[in-house]
């Protein structure tokens, strides 16, 4: 018994702590208490919005029932519909080309076409205005030789639809690409062996199998469009978000802003409910679990050239031209004596606020994830669902609600950085929860049980085993929240302390005042900063 040479009797060498305790294997208090606190805190803005709207009584309902509200609703839905259609038309063929064909430079295209994800919508909106608007680049180019004085109006629907399609098609693209890569090629081969041609197979087998991913991507785009503030505010198209902001800025009575926010929230929740349903159904469409054999690449033959042209056009409009436009205005500004050192303050502020938000959000997500994954029950699932409020609530609605709440009840916190960081937390908690959830699901419960059976109490198991193993997920969550916070505009505009300028707000104010040259530098910086976490994530994933 060499192993036992610790000395003495078994009782003396025992490394287990003695003790009695009648504890149920339920969640320990250090897990459920913070989780409940987080869920309650996150639910606060929505609850307050409801209370506030219902409390303002008949007046708000009258305001809502006016024709103007219907017009806003109509514009919002039209925009969502057109943008969703456009993104499917761009994303689906791109996904297929970059996953399943022998497209030349396939790898390059799959990176380039996903990159617009890092461009905030207001940057694209700004680019569209700066390129195609009055006093913009195109007019400048055409005015000289051709004497063109006026271009077709870019403000309003066309500009907003264009901008939002260009930034949001990667949602469809990435979702469908993932589904295509997971799809078992044996299913398509079976269809071919049963006498179906390539096109018939795509139509009868591939497309139905992709439908859940496609639907989920499309609904995400619709939600993104509805809650987007940046592009519609740049292009002055009065959908819900822009109308809410105008109402908030111009009117002393903010009841209508609150009521409009609530309507927007209801629509967003409806879209999410539909999305959840398609996601639930996708399980039945799921092909074989685990790694599947990669499919043989489809030979494009002569179709290679149109395919290449398509990819180039998308990359040109969504990536190259915007960067070129920003570069042009930056060069012009520098030439005209603009200085860059004014940027330093907003840059520090952006990084500071984003860092705080990342840390706070990742920490708040942990107890929720532990509870939902390790102690699954109806109650814990509900609690986790509650933290998804940020998905449903457009940033502007959360910001407004917190403004009201802060002004009425939390005077010292009103217009403080703390309240702003809290708004970020509410908005981006779902992202952190999602990332941590995946990584916790990969930690086998037997590892934690092993640690318990080796004499470690639950808190130590968490600190020594579970959290270290979740580190990749936590890091990914933090990076994503950092990125999202950098790009966030409406909440920062409304809740930022006085004089607290971030890259996003300084870009927005310069651009909306027509100082294109001054807006170009923060825009480029934002794009650059946003690409860093994505690049890290991509490199990590590759390893």
């Amino acid at each position, binding site marked *: *018994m060499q192993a036992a040479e610790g000395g003495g009797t078994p009782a003396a060498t025992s490394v287990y702590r003695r003790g009695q305790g009648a504890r149920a294997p339920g969640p320990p208090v250090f897990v459920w208490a913070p989780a409940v606190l987080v869920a309650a805190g996150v639910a606060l803005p929505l609850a307050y919005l409801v209370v506030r709207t219902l409390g303002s009584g008949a007046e708000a309902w009258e305001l809502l029932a006016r024709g103007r509200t219907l017009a806003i609703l109509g514009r919002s839905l039209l925009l969502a519909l057109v943008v969703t259609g456009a993104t499917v038309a761009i994303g689906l063929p791109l996904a297929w080309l970059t996953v399943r064909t022998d497209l030349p430079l396939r790898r390059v295209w799959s990176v380039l076409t996903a990159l617009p994800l890092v461009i905030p919508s207001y940057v694209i909106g700004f680019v569209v205005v700066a390129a195609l608007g009055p006093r913009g680049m195109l007019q400048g180019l055409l005015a000289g030789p051709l004497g063109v004085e006026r271009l077709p109006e870019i403000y309003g629907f066309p500009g907003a639809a264009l901008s939002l399609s260009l930034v949001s098609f990667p949602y469809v693209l990435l979702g469908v690409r993932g589904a295509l890569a997971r799809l078992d090629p044996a299913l398509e081969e079976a269809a071919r062996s049963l006498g179906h041609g390539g096109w018939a197979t795509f139509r009868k087998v591939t497309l139905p199998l992709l439908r859940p991913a496609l639907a989920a991507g499309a609904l995400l785009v619709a939600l993104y469009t509805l809650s987007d503030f940046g592009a519609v505010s740049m292009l002055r198209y009065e959908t819900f978000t822009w109308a809410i902001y105008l109402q908030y800025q111009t009117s002393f009575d903010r009841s209508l802003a609150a009521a409009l926010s609530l309507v927007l929230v209801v629509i967003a929740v409806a879209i999410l409910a539909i999305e959840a349903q398609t996601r639930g159904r996708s399980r039945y469409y799921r092909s074989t679990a685990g790694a599947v054999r990669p499919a043989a690449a489809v030979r494009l033959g002569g179709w290679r050239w149109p395919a290449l042209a398509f990819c180039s056009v998308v990359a040109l409009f969504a990536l190259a031209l915007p960067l070129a436009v920003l570069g042009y205005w930056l060069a012009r500004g520098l030439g005209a004596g603009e200085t860059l050192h004014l940027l330093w303050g907003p840059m520090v502020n952006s990084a500071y606020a984003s860092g705080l938000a990342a840390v706070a959000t990742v920490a708040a997500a942990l107890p929720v994830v532990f509870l939902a994954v390790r102690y699954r029950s109806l109650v814990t699932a509900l609690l986790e669902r509650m933290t998804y409020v940020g998905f449903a609530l457009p940033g502007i609605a959360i910001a407004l609600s917190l403004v009201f709440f802060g002004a009425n009840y939390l005077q010292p916190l009103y217009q403080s950085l703390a309240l702003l960081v809290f708004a970020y937390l509410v908005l981006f908690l779902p992202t952190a929860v999602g990332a941590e959830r995946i990584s916790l699901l990969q930690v086998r419960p037997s590892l934690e049980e092993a640690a318990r059976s080796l004499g470690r109490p639950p808190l130590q198991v968490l600190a020594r085993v579970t959290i270290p193993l979740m580190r990749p997920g936590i890091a990914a969550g933090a990076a994503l929240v950092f990125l999202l916070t950098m790009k966030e505009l409406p909440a920062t505009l409304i809740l930022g302390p006085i004089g607290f300028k971030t890259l996003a707000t300084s870009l927005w104010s310069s651009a909306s005042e027509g100082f294109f040259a001054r807006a170009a530098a923060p825009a480029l910086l934002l794009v650059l900063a946003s690409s860093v976490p994505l690049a890290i994530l991509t490199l990590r994933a590759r390893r």
Partner: protein
Amino acid sequence: MSEIVLQCEALTKHYGPVRAVDGLDVAVERGQILALLGPSGCGKTTTLRLLAGFERPDQGRILLEGRAISDARTLLPPERRGIGMVFQDYALFPHLTVADNVGFGLHRLRPAERADRIRAVLKLVGLAALEERYPHELSGGQQQRVALARALAPQPKVLLLDEPFSNLDADLRAQVRGEVEQILRSAATTAIFVTHDQEEAFAIADRVAVLNEGRLEQVGTAEEVYHLPLTRFVADFVGRADFLPGRFTGDSVETELGRWPAPLDLPPGTEVEVMLRPDDISLVADPGGAAVVEARQFRGEENIYTVRLPSGRGVHSSSPAYEVYAPRTSVRVLAHPPHVVVFAHKRAVPQKGPATSQGASPSTAEAPSAGDG
């Protein structure tokens, strides 16, 4: 050595309407290795998890060295039980080296002591050279031994092993099994392991507890469980068995394959079933034989024949690998059970002796290896 270390009484665990463990009484003595043997879903893994403290029992109690660690009022958390566990998937911490894995349960020791213990245990399992490796850099068999070393390091009062060999390739399994038994014996560990493989249970365990639907069917040595099964379930599950109809005639029981001393008193004329193992039955080629070879399954070390008796009933025989009879060969069947095990026929017999879950009363008797076809 007959001191009971761990025992459970009337242990019960439900999952909804399913009784995973249903009134289980089992005990293990110091230094003994006990196998929980049963088909999948029989509740053996749940039993292990109840003993380890990962699940809360609905009823019953668990005593460790005479002290209740789980009863109506007490539920000692796993970290305070001093019960080690080797998990089916090994559950090695992927972020820690072999040495840190093994030292994980030694957090109450001083660093020097801890290092000594880690070294000693790794030496015991023959992995001293691999201290600094990470789990993913080890083979399946090595991971197994690290898991064993880790569980042994804090010197648990009892070690639980959940299907310890199921993740190993078949060719490695027998070898690792031997090594593990060697390690457990040399550390004088009291152990309970769960398996669905009787060969595994027989190879390692001092005693085998056969479980079915959350209940204990029988506990005993491997030989007892194999030769003297108490229930039809045990007879069926542990090894292959045929059940031949028989009839009591005074002090013996008469079947199509012979007449053997009756193991118990039943009224003459009572209909019973006699259990016959394939190795109780041998074949002799005989053109005049009444039985016919129906199929042969070559298993390497033996042939398993299915033979049709004149009554139309099929029985199985284990014959040497070199004894090959073609299908439809006429043979003589010789039955020579070392123990006569009879189960009272379900319909015909009034219950006598201890009733079992099968509604049959099993009885056994030593019998001279007798009988002819």
